[in-house]
């Protein structure tokens, strides 16, 4: 009964490839997020969606494109992968976009670009 799930858990790919990471939450939350955690454990928000609409878009290369087909899913597509994209990507959700609400994190997807 996983609350926030991500697939795949591990992703190893070569530079220049295109890949997608999927995220699903079964908590009935309105808001979902993508975070990137680098090798030094620094966690930075990339995107946030509320009811399928983009509400936070940090300075992220346009090779990264989030897609929210419905409010339970937020996928991340990455074009032309680069070495610097190697990181752990976390999906999260919260009941509403008000930051007072707790964010529930998925287990992460470890992306390795070779």
């Amino acid at each position: 009964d996983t609350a926030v799930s991500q697939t795949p858990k591990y992703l190893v790919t070569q530079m220049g490839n295109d890949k997608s990471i999927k995220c699903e939450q079964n908590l009935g939350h309105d808001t979902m997020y993508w975070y990137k955690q680098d090798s030094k454990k620094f966690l930075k928000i990339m995107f946030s969606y509320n009811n399928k609409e983009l509400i936070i878009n940090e300075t992220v290369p346009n090779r990264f494109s989030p897609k929210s087909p419905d409010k339970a899913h937020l996928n991340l597509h990455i074009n032309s992968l680069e070495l610097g994209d190697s990181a752990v990507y976390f999906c999260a959700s919260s009941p509403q976009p008000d930051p007072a609400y707790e964010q529930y994190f998925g287990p992460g997807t470890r992306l390795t670009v070779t």
Partner: protein
Amino acid sequence: AQSVTQLDSQVPVFEEAPVELRCNYSSSVSVYLFWYVQYPNQGLQLLLKYLSGSTLVKGINGFEAEFNKSQTSFHLRKPSVHISDTAEYFCAVTPQGGYQKVTFGIGTKLQVIP
């Protein structure tokens, strides 16, 4: 813009000893403050949060934190740690209200020594 400083990257402590993990923040507006914990190979989990009211906040697993507005601090404490508390701890801050992003600190690795 807001920022978070976690003053210690690693904190070793013996089992059953007390621990304090330090966090200072900077913001020109009122904020919410959080502590999240990340166990190895897992996503983040909320330990506790300060929104308003009492400056002493109690969380899960016996942790507590004190909001000090004059010192712009939100230090995390536990009177007696267990081996299972070994994890990475993240302090986070966000401005109150609206569609605001949460800014995370770089994390403090708590190493409990048997």
